[in-house]
Every structure is written in structure tokens, then in C-alpha cells.
């Protein structure tokens, strides 16, 4: 595959990961923090940035580990454990670096980092790149796009929920119930993007 074709494919995958195949609204990954942290816009922006960063880096690391360690050793079934360990180690490492060199950033993002280890969207993105057999550059686009798409969804949801705080919601529907319904409406909106991008 020539470089231009690959770059083009990377762009397509990037945009389709944000809009037509949003990791949260079409594959339902990362629902737990989505429901729990989407009350305040500020917190969700922080978590969103942390996810974008960790997802981009870990999907690359996992891609490399899979391609150059597991496939040659024929240990593909071992990928769940390896991916989880890489993600956990990476998050721990980032936390330590931030704490040492950028206390301000650490205060803003630090509390979200441990949450990310158990975010299924991170592991899910890595598994998708392996299952769909993306190349290296396409993986970059996919990891970054998925993170950005997740962030877009959670920030939009937080905005809506802040407005919702003053509305009267039926008792049984408060909290997760109404959030799921809003997510459903958002997913409905995102279906509108289908067909804009081909081949994603």
C-alpha cells in the first residue's frame, strides 16, 4: 500500500471513528464513566482529554506489542492479558511523570487517570485495531479518532445534563435512566452521519 493511500485511509478512519462509528454511541464502550462523570462539563472535559491521550498511546503500544511480540511467538490468545498489563502500566507511568513534572496538569487530570485503566473503551479500541487488521498509520488515526469521539460524546452529554438539572424528571427515570435516553437521542443524531463517509 502506498503512503498516500494509507494517509487517506487514516483520515477516513479518523473521521468515521468520531462520527459514524462513535465508540460510545455505536459500540457502547466506556459507558460506566460516561454515566458517572457526565454531570459537570469541567470534569468531563478533563476525563475526555485523559482518554484521548491514553487511548492514542495505548492503541499504538498494543498494536506494536501484538505485531512484533505476540504474532511471531504465536501467542495471539494471550493478547487480553498483555493489553491489560500494557494499559495499566502506561497509565501508572503517566501518572508518575505528571506528578513529578507538571503538578498543575496532575491536579486537573490526575484523579481521572486511575479510572481509565478500567475503561473498557481503551481495551476495546486496542482489540478493534487487531481484529480489523489496521496498519500502523491507520491505528494512529483510529486511536486518536475514537478518543476524540468519546470526548465529544461525554462533553455534549455533560452540557445537556447541566441544563437538565433544573427540569422535572419522573422519579424512576432520574439519574441513569434519563441519561440513557439522552444517549439514545444522541446516537439517533449520529446515525445521520452514516453515508457521509464511505469505507470507514
Amino acid at each position, binding site marked *: 500500500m502506498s503512503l498516500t493511500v494509507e494517509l487517506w485511509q487514516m483520515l477516513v478512519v479518523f473521521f468515521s471513528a468520531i462520527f459514524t462509528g462513535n465508540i460510545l454511541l455505536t459500540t457502547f*464502550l466506556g459507558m460506566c464513566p460516561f454515566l458517572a462523570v457526565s454531570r459537570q462539563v469541567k470534569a468531563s472535559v478533563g476525563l475526555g482529554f485523559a482518554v484521548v491521550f491514553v487511548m492514542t498511546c495505548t492503541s499504538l503500544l498494543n498494536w506494536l506489542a501484538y505485531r512484533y511480540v505476540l504474532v511471531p511467538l504465536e501467542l495471539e*490468545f494471550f493478547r487480553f492479558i498483555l493489553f491489560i498489563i500494557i494499559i*495499566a502500566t502506561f497509565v501508572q507511568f503517566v501518572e508518575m511523570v505528571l506528578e513529578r513534572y507538571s503538578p498543575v496538569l496532575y491536579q486537573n487530570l490526575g484523579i481521572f487517570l486511575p479510572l481509565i485503566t*478500567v475503561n473498557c473503551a481503551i481495551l*476495546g479500541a486496542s*482489540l478493534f485495531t487487531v*481484529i480489523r487488521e489496521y496498519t500502523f498509520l491507520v491505528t494512529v488515526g483510529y486511536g486518536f479518532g475514537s478518543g476524540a469521539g468519546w470526548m465529544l460524546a461525554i462533553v455534549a452529554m455533560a452540557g445537556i445534563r447541566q441544563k437538565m438539572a433544573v427540569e422535572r424528571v419522573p422519579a424512576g427515570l432520574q439519574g441513569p*435512566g434519563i441519561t440513557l435516553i439522552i444517549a*439514545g437521542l444522541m446516537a439517533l443524531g449520529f446515525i445521520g452521519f452514516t453515508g457521509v463517509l464511505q469505507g470507514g
Partner: protein
Amino acid sequence: MSAVAEREPASPRPRPRKRESALRKTMKEGLWDNNPIFRQVLGICSALAVTNLVLNTAVMCLALTWTTALSCLTVSLLRDWTPHRIRMMVQTLIIAFYVILVDLALKAYWPEMSRSLGPYVGLIITNCIIMGRCEAFARSNSPGMSFLDGLFSGLGYSFVLLMVAVLRELLGMGSILGVPVPYFSTAWDKWIIMVMPPGAFFTLACLIWIFRSIRSGEEEKSA
């Protein structure tokens, strides 16, 4: 069992009866009172995606219940030998072990199912329910009770997911387990939206609404 007995003051009651009540309590907790989905809204990540077909959901639920029950059992068996600081890592590895077994078994004996579930079998590892049960219950209770607790949490999760799946497949495609249902496959105007992602959100939201309304009624009655 021993932990339960320790917490309650010693009573002259014969053992078997007490065991039965503990069992029933665990059962009710997992299936209804503390249902992982309705009550705690946990672990729906890897679940909603497969609920557009009843068959896929059933396989997924089976895999999840098996993993939860056996992980809780193993965590409980190893609880005295696990250093406190690294327990999360140990728990994750235990869970991953059982998930890999499921994944390999599906790949070997049911490749089509393995393909259509895609990454979701692997994502059982990061399902918060399992970790939550290990952390909240199995870490401090006897193996037998932990196994039951995990089993019933898994079953409580499964029955909600199966309800979502039955509704979605019936309303969206007019069939259940691929078998056409008389009225729904002919006269019924199929709701395509139900098999698409938004349908999952709406169905689950409505079920949670119904459950919480019933619960608040129950609580008022008992209060």
C-alpha cells in the same frame, strides 16, 4: 459461611436452616435487590452491543456468568495469600484467565459466534461487575458463598440483558432466536431502530424506569 456466622451472634438454630437463608439472601440480592444493572448500572458497556440478537446475548450472558462465578471463587480461595497492594492486578489476571478460556473455546467450537461477538468476549475483563463483586464480596468471604454471590450477580445481569434482547429482536425483526413470531413477523411494522444502537439505549432506559418505580413502591410499603 463462616464469615456470615461470625458476623451474626451465635444462635442455637441448627446449621442447615441458616445456610438456606443465607443462600436465599444472596440469591435475592443478586437477582433483584442489588441487581448489577438496575441498581448499580454497572457493566453495561460490553453488554448493550450484543443485545440485538437473543442468541448472541445468551452466549454472552453464559460467558459472563461463568467468569463472574469462577473468578469470585478463585479470588476468595486466594484471599489469604494475595498481598493487599497488588490485589487489583491479581484479580484482573484471574478474570483474564477465565475469559481467555471462554474465548478459546468459542474460537474452537463455534467460530461464527466468536466472529459475531468480536471484541466483546475479551471486554468481559473490564466489565465492572466482576471486579466489583471480587472487590466487594469475594475478598472477605468464604469460597462457597463467593461462588454463589458471583453466580447470582451474573444471573441477575443475564436476565436483564435477555429481556432487552427479547424486546429488541421481537420489535426490530419480528423474531426470537431467529424464529419468526406469528403476529410480529407479518402484520407488525418492524421498528428497525430497535436493532440499531439507539434502540438499546431506549430499551434499557425504559426497563430501568419500570424497575425503579417498582422498587420505590416496595420501599414505601416496607417503610
